[in-house]
């Protein structure tokens, strides 16, 4: 019993020991904050990656793609049945986007996606990211409406009432300035970020013409290009996508690349699959890959969204674990602090230890006092750290706002990160690990001093000055 009483008293009277655990507290708090923010970021990132990529993608790396998407889809249905909820064929091809702005041409490398927007919307979050310049939601459609046509400089000469003999000529001009085929471009393909005013300036607003250049799918590829009218922007928050993706109508792209007739069957080089919730994606991808290879060897590659983005996800995971290792060193350092201060306290308490032994305390009892003391310090240190860390995480956006106000500069620039707020996610498993690790270190650090205390010879301890 005396062990607990003495532990408790030492805890309340030895503030120097409390000082030694401040580093435990700080270490635990920092680890919780960092892990929560990183988990929040990576969760958001995975969400977006996943939303853009769909669950499973079947790619063909041949430039002419494959002409039988219906047969491929039928085989998919045959091998995994209704576990696939939706499928959409697409063409993905690298290219170049040219935008005319302020009398200059701006050219950007892009990834051109020929899609059927309605179908695409069923296989992922494609539709959820579509917005106009003011970030109002837009429908998944390439339709170039009358309102966009009217944005053409020539449109002001159109007179709806009068029957103008030049109407046809003007209409030609309008159709040249705002082409009939629509394109959905990544937010940053169409805009330039101006850090000085913290604004995205659109060089290709809705209705603007964007010229896409690419190569045809022929045996000997030839350059080809066509103009599209920007109808909407895709803002996923993943800069990699927003600065490269341009979506155009599948049939049009097939026609331009010589992959189809523009009407009926055409070739594609990608099929996106949406899978029923709870399915094991990598297992399904494996099954599909085997089935497809059996029928058409060496044509397809089947990958889950995670496999497609493997290096990026792995990089984030590595970053997080390195950070964790570094931060854990802080707590390990704190452990040596506890060790040092504990050894001091044992020396200071030498006489009391002798007295306790004279009163009949056993060796293990004395050891228990100091082990218990170390454990209590660890509990206090990591408990306060956990509380502080969690409070920080839960109020991180208020803290960010306050810091921004005090320092006069944006601590978290939502223009850079695309997130309106700092995303956080508290993983209780991780928190438990951090707190458990800190406790273990505190106890480990007190083992040696406790052992020394318990081994003190009572007479020598009593005679200690």
């Amino acid at each position, binding site marked *: *019993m*005396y062990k*607990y*009483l*003495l532990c408790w*008293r*030492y805890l309340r*009277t030895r503030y120097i020991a409390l000082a030694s655990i401040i580093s435990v507290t700080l270490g635990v708090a920092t680890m919780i904050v960092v892990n929560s923010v990183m988990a929040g970021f990576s969760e958001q990132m995975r969400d977006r990656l996943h939303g853009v990529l769909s669950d499973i993608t079947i790619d063909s790396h041949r430039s002419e793609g494959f002409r039988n998407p219906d047969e491929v889809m039928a085989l998919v249905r045959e091998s995994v049945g209704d576990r696939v909820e939706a499928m959409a064929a697409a063409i993905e091809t690298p290219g170049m986007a040219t935008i005319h702005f302020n009398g200059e041409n701006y050219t950007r490398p892009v990834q051109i996606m020929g899609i059927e927007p309605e179908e695409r919307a069923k296989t992922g979050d494609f539709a959820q990211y579509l917005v106009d310049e003011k970030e109002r939601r837009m429908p998944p459609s390439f339709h170039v409406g009358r309102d966009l046509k009217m944005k053409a400089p020539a449109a002001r000469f159109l007179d709806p009432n009068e029957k103008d003999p030049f109407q046809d000529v003007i209409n030609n001009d309008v159709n040249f300035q705002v082409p009939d085929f629509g394109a959905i471009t990544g937010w940053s393909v169409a805009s330039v970020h101006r850090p000085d005013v913290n604004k995205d300036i659109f060089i290709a607003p809705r209705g603007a013409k964007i010229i896409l250049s690419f190569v045809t799918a022929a045996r000997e590829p030839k350059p080809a290009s066509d103009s599209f009218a920007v109808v909407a922007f895709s803002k996923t928050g993943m800069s990699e996508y927003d600065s490269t993706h341009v979506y155009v109508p599948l049939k049009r792209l097939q026609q331009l690349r010589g992959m189809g007739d523009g009407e009926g069957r055409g070739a594609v080089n990608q099929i996106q699959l949406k899978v029923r919730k709870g399915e094991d994606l990598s297992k399904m991808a494996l099954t599909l890959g085997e089935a497809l290879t059996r029928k058409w060897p060496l044509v397809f590659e089947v990958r889950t969204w995670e496999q497609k983005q493997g290096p990026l996800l792995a990089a984030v995971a590595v970053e997080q674990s390195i950070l964790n290792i570094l931060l854990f060193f802080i707590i390990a350092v704190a452990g040596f602090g506890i060790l040092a201060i504990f050894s001091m306290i044992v020396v200071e308490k030498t*006489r*009391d230890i*002798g*007295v*306790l*032994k*004279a*009163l*009949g*305390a*056993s*060796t293990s*009892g004395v050891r228990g006092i100091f082990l218990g003391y170390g454990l209590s310090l660890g509990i206090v240190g990591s408990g306060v750290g956990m509380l502080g860390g969690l409070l920080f995480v839960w109020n991180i956006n208020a803290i960010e706002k306050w810091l921004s106000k005090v320092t006069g500069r944006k601590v978290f620039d939502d223009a850079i990160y695309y997130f309106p707020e700092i995303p956080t996610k508290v993983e209780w498993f991780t928190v438990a690990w951090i707190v458990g690790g800190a406790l273990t270190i505190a106890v480990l650090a007190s083992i040696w001093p406790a052992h020394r205390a318990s081994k003190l*010879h*009572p*007479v020598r301890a*009593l*005679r200690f000055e």
Partner: protein
Amino acid sequence: MSVHLSAIGLEKSYRKGKIQVPVLRGVDLEVEHGELVAIVGASGSGKSTLLHVLGLLDGPDAGSVQLSGERIDNLSEHRRDVLRNRTFGFIFQFYHLLPELSALENVMAPLMIRHGVRAYLAQRKMIRKEATALLERVGLGHRLTHRPAELSGGEMQRAAIARALAGSPEFLLADEPTGNLDAATGQSVLELLRDLNRERGLTMMLVTHDAHIAAQTDRTVRLAEGRIEEWATVLA
């Protein structure tokens, strides 16, 4: 009267650098039940050492200690812990109260050491009552919650005596209990010990420098040259 505690040929030496310094060179001593024995001797003659060996805080190099005829110095560590806790009560010159605990908690300490958490909690009321009664007995009923630092020397020694009595030991070992007190306070502490010796039939050995104190005990022995010589006759 029967022999309560006996030392038979106790030898103990300390190593100082390379040479062995003998402190006890064959101490033979018998203390009867209920006896109050004083040990006198020059400083450094080994009085504390003898007390520590008798109270199982230290082991002899040779010889043995017997409690009511049973050898106790060679018992297991655990059995010796139990004997220190239940049979012996220690009183020190510098009181040695635990500074973090109140007077009452200090007195309860031996009982807290004796009992585990569950047993302690079950008997908490009784233990408190016993400790309070002991503090009242030594005249500190009004100082229960005081920390040692808030007590005077005499009060601290009384609290230490109450602590030594907690758990009803049979044998008190007091190492210069009055050595750090002024004459009047020392006298009152001695009277307290004498009263307890009579009231409870406690056997006591007390080390002292003070011939006046020694004179008030049943018997005085002298430790010199590492051996005991009866001194009662000398005084008489």
